[in-house]
């Protein structure tokens, strides 16, 4: 009954998540609107472009009921530009797509990938969304005839993946016990691949330094209770540690 998996999502689960991303399809057949559990499905009227979740788009594509319009960032010239940027930039990944404006009221639900429409035909052409690798792979596998140059897209995706994995591996040198590492623009698969190693290193470093940290914690707590920092003790402790 209990789930026998370690913490963190497995690659098939990430693919499942990615299938909730919206993509733009050009239907070849009519289909009435449907009430689904995740919201209303818009009616399909060929040849009107319609945004659909990827799982449904793939289902329609496989039965030749629709064509999928690849997102603009999957075009060879966009990928080339992103790859150049990624290769020339030493630190960090290329920036993620711009976020839509946020609701002003603090109680409103904030949407996040895979529900941000970052892979429809209207998406930004210059940024890789969170599920870039999975979307690219799935579309190339199921709908390669909808691409103009599927082979060059495949090659560019592979290049991007290698450059970014190299960065993730290089970032290992920066790991330390406090956590607090910024990874803006990271992809879902990259998180999944790096999770066990990154969190493992951080957790173990923390356990090595646990006693010193406990000391520090007790002192901070004391300071807070006293209402002023006990500077004398602070210096003493620093001496001991050196």
């Amino acid at each position, binding site marked *: 009954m209990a789930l026998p998996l370690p913490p963190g999502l497995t690659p098939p689960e990430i693919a499942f998540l990615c299938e909730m991303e919206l993509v733009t399809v050009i239907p070849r057949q009519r*289909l009435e609107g449907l009430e689904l559990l995740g919201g*209303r499905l818009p009616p399909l009227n060929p040849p009107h472009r319609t945004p659909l979740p990827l*799982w449904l788009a793939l289902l329609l594509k496989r039965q030749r009921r629709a064509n999928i319009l690849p997102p603009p960032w999957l075009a060879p010239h966009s990928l080339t530009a992103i790859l150049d940027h990624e290769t020339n930039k030493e630190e960090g990944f290329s920036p993620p797509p711009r976020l839509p404006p946020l609701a002003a009221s603090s109680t409103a639900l904030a949407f996040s990938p895979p*529900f941000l429409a970052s892979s429809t035909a209207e998406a930004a052409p210059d940024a890789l969304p969170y599920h870039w690798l999975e979307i690219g792979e799935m579309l190339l596998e199921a709908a390669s005839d909808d691409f103009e140059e599927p082979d060059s897209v495949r090659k560019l995706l592979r290049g991007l993946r290698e450059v970014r994995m190299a960065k993730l591996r290089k970032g290992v040198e920066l790991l330390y016990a406090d956590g607090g590492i910024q990874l803006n623009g990271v992809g879902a698969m990259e*998180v999944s691949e790096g999770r066990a190693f990154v969190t493992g290193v951080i957790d173990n470093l923390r356990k090595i330094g646990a006693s010193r940290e406990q000391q520090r*914690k007790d002192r901070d707590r004391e300071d807070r209770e006293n209402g002023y920092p006990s500077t004398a003790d602070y210096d003493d402790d620093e001496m001991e540690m050196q």
Partner: protein
Amino acid sequence: MDIDDLLAEVTADAVPQQQRDLQELTRAWIAERVAPELLPYPAELMERVLERIRRQIELVEDQTGNLDPKANFKLIIIQTELERFKFLVRSFLRARIKKIDTHPLHLLALHQNPPSSTSILNPLLSPSELQYLNTHQSLLSTHYSSSFLSQFPNSLQRLDDTAGGISMVDKPDEETAVFVRCLRDVGEVWVEGTDNRFQMKRGDVWVVRWSAVRGWVGEGSCELI
């Protein structure tokens, strides 16, 4: 408040409840799969989702006899989506049961004496989870005592001993590092016991200790990934 904010408010309200629930359920599932400890049970959300699933199953049962090929294809779509939802719910509940099985006594204590920060609306365990925990635990302790514990001296028979300053009750490690994404600007985050302070802004992805961001995840300003 500028025009962007106004537009955002209008669009946020226009998003139907179903879509919002899917986002919330997906988020809750990922969080439960990633977080080192059990999170409060989202009772209202689960009630809405389960009710919709029940209605959709009834619809499928009603229409299965329909032999019209067009209606048949619609049914395939509905069933595919239904299976996806069922997977989400099932995986979510199973991830919770795993945590309940790992730390039963700790969770029972937490459920009975919740820390003041948790709201009364969302208790830690759902009624059926609590029932599962109690029954499972009583089966286990009966089994232990009949197979070997009863042979021990009285003072060694307890399962929640705290003698010698060490508690027998296992707890999850709250300092585990997690990957987190900010949904709103949360300002300065401080990792207790270290000098590490940093600003977390909307859209940022950080690797940080669970204990430092737990509050933000609970109120929906951050999500686990």
